[in-house]
């Protein structure tokens, strides 16, 4: 009956043993298969990035996880337990009103009040044609200066919020930029255009859910100031007083200026990498 054996005969104990063995083996196999299958499904349903983000969010340092309301000074201290998904957040309220237009310069680096900021240091701006433009904020730009290389996604490809949308190389460090919103890429720009991507959002640009999770106005101010403090701490040469915004001006091309710094960590903190 079995190959390679002469005169093998079944006994009841064989049935018991072999079925036991293969049941256990099947259980083990089943667990693996289910895990694989669920993984595949997550990809199918565009939940992969969300998972990655959530599990990575969980490992972000506390300082990176502050709630926008604290950043805006509306509450004293509150850290986000929601992976920055304000739309799912119960405590999110509508009083985050749009501030007046214009560029604000009060931190030594500017930010636009009519732009929406992702904590991975990208901004989102509305365009007339209803698309959204995405770019690196000033802090990121000054830090990197001119990247050695950029690897942009293809036009028409889908991006998911918090997923890696484009990669840049600088002095051997790889930088992964997180997508601030969901949508389809309709235009590719670059450092020189002042914007990197034009996105047609998954929902309508005016739909609150599209931009709700992004920082604006006072939140940006609070957030950026904290980011600058972090930078100062991280970039100061050993045993010196924190000073890199001398005269409130953040120097250009930080990475070229201070190559000896632990850029691996700094970049990771800046662009929310793990």
């Amino acid at each position, binding site marked *: 009956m079995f*190959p390679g054996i002469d005169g093998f005969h079944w006994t009841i104990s064989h049935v018991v043993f072999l079925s036991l063995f293969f049941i256990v083996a099947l259980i083990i196999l089943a667990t693996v298969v289910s895990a694989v299958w669920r993984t595949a499904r997550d*990809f199918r349903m565009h939940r992969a990035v969300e998972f990655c983000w959530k599990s990575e969010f969980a490992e972000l340092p506390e300082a990176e996880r502050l709630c926008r309301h604290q950043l805006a000074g509306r509450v004293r201290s509150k850290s986000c337990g929601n992976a920055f998904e304000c739309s799912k957040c119960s405590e999110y309220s509508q009083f985050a009103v749009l501030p007046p237009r214009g560029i604000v310069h009060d931190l030594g680096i500017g930010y636009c009040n009519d732009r929406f900021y992702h904590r991975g240091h990208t901004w989102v701006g509305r365009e007339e044609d209803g698309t959204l433009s995405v770019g690196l904020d000033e802090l990121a730009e000054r830090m990197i200066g001119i990247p050695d290389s950029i690897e942009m996604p293809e036009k028409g490809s889908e991006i998911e919020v918090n997923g890696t949308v484009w990669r840049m190389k600088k002095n051997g460090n790889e930088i992964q930029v997180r997508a601030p919103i969901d949508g389809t890429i309709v235009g590719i720009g670059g450092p020189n255009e002042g914007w990197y991507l034009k996105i047609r959002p998954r929902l309508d640009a005016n739909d609150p859910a599209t931009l709700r999770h992004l920082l604006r106005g006072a939140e940006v101010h609070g957030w950026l100031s904290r980011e600058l403090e972090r930078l100062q701490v991280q970039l100061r040469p050993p045993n010196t007083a924190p000073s890199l915004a001398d005269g409130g001006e953040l120097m250009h091309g930080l990475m070229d200026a201070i190559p000896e710094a632990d850029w691996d960590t700094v970049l990771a903190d800046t662009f929310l990498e793990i």
Partner: protein
Amino acid sequence: MKVTRRDLLGWSAGAAAGLLFTPVPWKLLDDTSIWTQNWRWIPQPTRGPVEVKQSFCTLCPNGCGVRVRMAAGWPVGVAGVASDPISRGALCPLGFAAQQLNWHPQRVHTVRHRGNSTSWEEARVAFAKACGEGKIAIVDGQPGRAASVAMKTFVEKRDGSYRVALAPEAQALAPYGAWSGLGAIGLGYDLENAQTVVSFGAPLLDGWGAPGRFTRLWAERAAGMADPQLRLIQVEAPLSGTAVSRTAARAWQWVPIRAGSEGALAAGLARVLLDEHLVRARGPMPTMTAGEAADQTGLSGGAILDLARTMVARPPVVAIANDGNPAIAALNVVLGAVGTRGGIVRRSKLAESYASADAVIGASYGTARAVLIDSTVPWDFVPQTDAEVFRFAAWDGGAGQADWLLPAPGFLEELTDVPTAPASAIETYAVAPSLVNAPAEVQSAAQFLGSIDPAAIAVEKIIHQRCDDLFRGRAGTVYGKEATAVAKIASAKEFEEQLWKGAVWVGVPPRSGDLRCELKEWPASGSSGRSGNASNANWSSAWLAPVLPPLASKLCQESNLREAPVGRKA
């Protein structure tokens, strides 16, 4: 379409799962199992028609009958022949692996002269030259064969000398031969009728004579019996430390004495027997007193007296020496065990007229120009001579100082006949046909001599002649499938045919009184040649194997039963 990593993963997973439902993995498993069972480097037995043939083992002078299983013409198994009256189906351990011997790495394949290989022609020329230049001697290990006759006649033509290397059993009989003037050959122990056997170090249960003879007697009449019909008393020194020989271990009684004091004990016993009138006074009175004997042997005087009493308690009694020690022979004279039933007897002479020899080995070779040694002569025999030595041998036992080493036929490779076994009480005769074709490069001594002297008679002829003579003798019985008296056999042809088929001719039982030994005074204790533990160093005291079958050396290495024989290659 663009292939992502995810797709690849999916596909490979699917493929792996799918593969399980094809026969492929199971077939592979199956193959590995088959493969692990027959690796090509595992030797495979030769397939071929299996047939069983009968002949006689001529590795030693006892000539036990063998049943040989042959596959594709090669012997693949050896067993005894139950109907053989000599061996009675028994063989020595070596016999059971003898089929390996012809393949032994030590097998001699080329004619060698002082180590360099040369040709038969060279050897022939050299020997013929020697014959021309002076006297020659031929040494034979198994006297009484047709080949012996061929060799003997060859020598006598050139008035050289024909010598015989006696088996130790026969050597022990030499003193009687000398005293009776009959010669050692032709005498034997009538063990079949003895009741008490006192062995002075003779390995009676360990290869003394044909394995099937005394061992069988002992098994049937003594083994495990509190009061056996056959009392075996082993007088022997411990081998080493407390270890004892196989015979001593299984004997009815073991008398441990100092090594080499056999002669003294024999004298002591004779003295006691005569002093105490335990025997009818015959033969000489030893000078040695029981006391001296006790001192030399390490036994107490009482023990010697007891031993003497036990010996005569259950006659007939016979003492057996392991060498030509005359003291033990003299003891037999005192015991009246010479020429009597159950003692030392003289065999009928129907087949023996051929076998008388000028001298046994040891005697000097005088002016001999060349000595030819037959392959039947044990390896440890080295002639004390400066003559040119021509050594026939199937296996190089390592003792090769011979000038010429000449490849002889191996196991079952040559036709020969089997004369009476040494120390047997009854004459026997058998024909051992060759079962295997000898390799082209080998020649027996007889063939060699034949090629030098065209007038020499071929072995086949002599065998035919002897069968004729035996048939005309009209005496004895032929033991084939069943026993038939020679008188009842129709023709010489039929008689000869039976022998060729493996039957054994058995002569008439010896008559008491045919042998007389007159002994004036107690002999000076002779040198005891082999010591007691020779039996342990060799496979059988009777035959010193030049080499052992690999399986035999396996037995030495892989069990504690037997020590590897000294100087014997495996």
